């Protein structure tokens, strides 16, 4: 896959800078120490996941209204990148939870709704693999994608609506919420880095789906030409 050298270098630089800032620049947290620094990868992965699933549902709704395959490509690209980011969040969460809470996992509303979201989008991707007809596949998965997205606001609101083991929201969580300004700056850098990677992956996944579509069109062309050939041969025989 050819990608502009400049954007690849920029994303690589951002990854290195964010890693350095998260490990060495951000101030140490008094109780959790190094484990708190997982925050700089955990929160950006959720932000990237929300962005990817939002792009996916925009693609799904646009496909259902326009029936243009481009929106279907965008839908599947967003869903797959969202699943990758969600997987990262589900791995880094327990790695932070163990030193902070003493347990790897608990079925509290935030964690449970997030796990369900992951399962829903895994099902979305599996569903696409099970339907052979491309139009039907795009239609069915778009409908399922819209349904799956309904869990996203629930995940976001879960630790605002219910008492959870998961910490209260750090941002947009009321007057007591917020972090040290230095932590905030490092987090912003990490968010930009993870979003940069997610955008690069999304564009690659979109190109892959476009190529798959091209392959389908070529197969149809060959089939129709073979059919034409067979018809002309049978006409000659008659």
């Amino acid at each position, binding site marked *: *896959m050819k990608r502009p050298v400049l954007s690849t270098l920029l994303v690589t630089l951002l*990854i290195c800078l964010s*890693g350095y800032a998260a*490990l060495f620049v951000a101030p140490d947290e008094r109780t*959790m*120490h*190094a*484990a708190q*620094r*997982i925050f700089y*990868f*955990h929160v950006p*992965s959720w932000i990237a996941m929300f962005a990817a699933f939002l792009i996916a549902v925009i693609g799904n709704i646009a496909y259902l209204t326009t029936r243009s395959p481009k929106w279907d490509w965008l839908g599947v690209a967003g869903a797959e990148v969202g699943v*990758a980011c969600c*997987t*990262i969040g589900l*791995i*880094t969460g327990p*790695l*932070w939870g*163990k*030193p902070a809470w003493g347990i790897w996992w608990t079925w509290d509303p935030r964690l449970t709704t997030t796990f369900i979201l992951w399962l829903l989008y895994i099902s979305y991707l599996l569903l696409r693999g099970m339907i052979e007809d491309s139009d039907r596949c795009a239609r069915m998965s778009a409908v399922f994608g819209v349904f799956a997205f309904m869990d996203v606001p629930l995940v976001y609101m879960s630790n605002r609506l219910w008492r959870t083991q998961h910490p209260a929201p750090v941002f947009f969580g009321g007057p007591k919420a917020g972090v040290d300004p230095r932590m905030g700056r490092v987090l912003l850098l990490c968010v930009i880095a*993870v979003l940069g*990677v997610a955008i690069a*992956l999304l564009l*690659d*996944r979109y*190109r*892959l789906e476009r*190529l*798959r579509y*091209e*392959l389908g069109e*070529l*197969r149809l*062309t*060959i089939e129709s*030409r*073979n059919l034409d*050939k067979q018809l002309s041969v049978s006409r000659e025989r008659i």
Partner: protein
Amino acid sequence: MKNFEYLLAAWIAVWAVFFFYQINLGRRFAKLRDEVERLKQQIQLLS
């Protein structure tokens, strides 16, 4: 640094997921591109 092993594991997990996903995308892309080229040649032969 206390709890460093958790931080290291999380850091590796993040970039491993992204890295392997990128490798996977590259492989799938190369496979499809070869198939597209093969079919294009087949169409040229048919016409």
